[in-house]
């Protein structure tokens, strides 16, 4: 396949960009980072929370840079990137599991949120907080399926590829994750 490089890297297609980065073009890797960092950042935030977010994003892209030559199908990049993101998230969980749990975090999760007498902006913040707490209540495997499918709009088949799971497992995890989150939100007074 021949690729005609334009002067403006922003005009390069994702596929062309990935292939150039595979060849070791670090200048274009900056462009690749700019295109994909939002997704990686959002996914990591939903999976691991805001602590160490910057470090985790950096870790993902560092692993991407080191492993890019091993990626056989450049068109598979997006799925592969999410898989690395998932690996970084699970590594972070392992690291976190070895540390003693922060008492404040636990207490935050069990705080009963006040629902009534709030202005629309506060209501929005309140709902955001509830969703974040609800997601954190799910185990990481269930949360990952939900974040990837329901928030990142990734089809179930691709989620199965990213998490290296059978499609049936993804469907079942999605079912239980939604059920659990719905129950949590209803318990907090949210009417869906």
């Amino acid at each position, binding site marked *: 396949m021949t690729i005609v490089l334009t002067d403006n890297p922003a005009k390069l297609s994702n596929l062309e960009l990935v292939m150039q980065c595979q060849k*070791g073009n*670090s200048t274009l*890797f*900056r462009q690749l*980072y*700019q295109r994909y*960092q*939002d997704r990686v*950042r*959002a996914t990591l*935030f*939903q999976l691991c929370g*805001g602590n160490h*977010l*910057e470090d985790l*994003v*950096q870790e993902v*892209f*560092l692993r991407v*840079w*080191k492993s890019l*030559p091993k990626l056989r199908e450049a068109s598979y990049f997006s799925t592969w990137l999410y898989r690395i993101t998932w690996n970084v998230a699970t590594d972070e969980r392992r690291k976190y599991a070895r540390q003693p749990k922060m008492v404040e975090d636990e207490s935050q999760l069990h705080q009963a949120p006040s629902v009534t007498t709030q202005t629309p902006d506060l209501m*929005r913040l309140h*709902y*955001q*907080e*509830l*969703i*974040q707490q609800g997601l954190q209540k799910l185990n990481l495997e269930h949360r990952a399926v939900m974040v990837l499918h*329901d*928030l990142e709009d990734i089809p179930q088949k691709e989620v199965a590829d990213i998490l290296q799971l059978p499609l049936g497992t993804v469907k079942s995890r999605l079912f239980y994750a*939604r059920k659990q*989150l*719905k129950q949590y*939100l209803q318990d907090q007074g*949210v009417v*869906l």
Partner: protein
Amino acid sequence: MRQPTDDDTLVTFLKTYQPSVPPESMTLENRLMAEISRHPRRKNKRLALFALGSIILAGLTIGGTIWQRNTLSPQVAISVEDLENFLVEGWEETLEASSGHSVNDDWFLLEDSTTESLDTQNY
């Protein structure tokens, strides 16, 4: 039009109120690029070794095939004499192997018995 299910309502709620991601720090991109410059892409040594190994293996295979053809290929008798010699030699070797003594001995025995019979006839 399809009625929204409970799941659809939940997903819409999640998307509407999903927690906002903290903004990217201004320094992250530069930190990452600095980190990357410390990890320059190395030539793939494994690939080079694999290619070298493949070349050597292919050379050995081709050389071996050529040698085998030149040395071990069946020789075809081009004249009737060659074929006759081959058959005689083969036959003699088979007999020697099975009887344990040389075929020439049998020839001598035959020759002796012929002379003997001739001698008796002379009588």
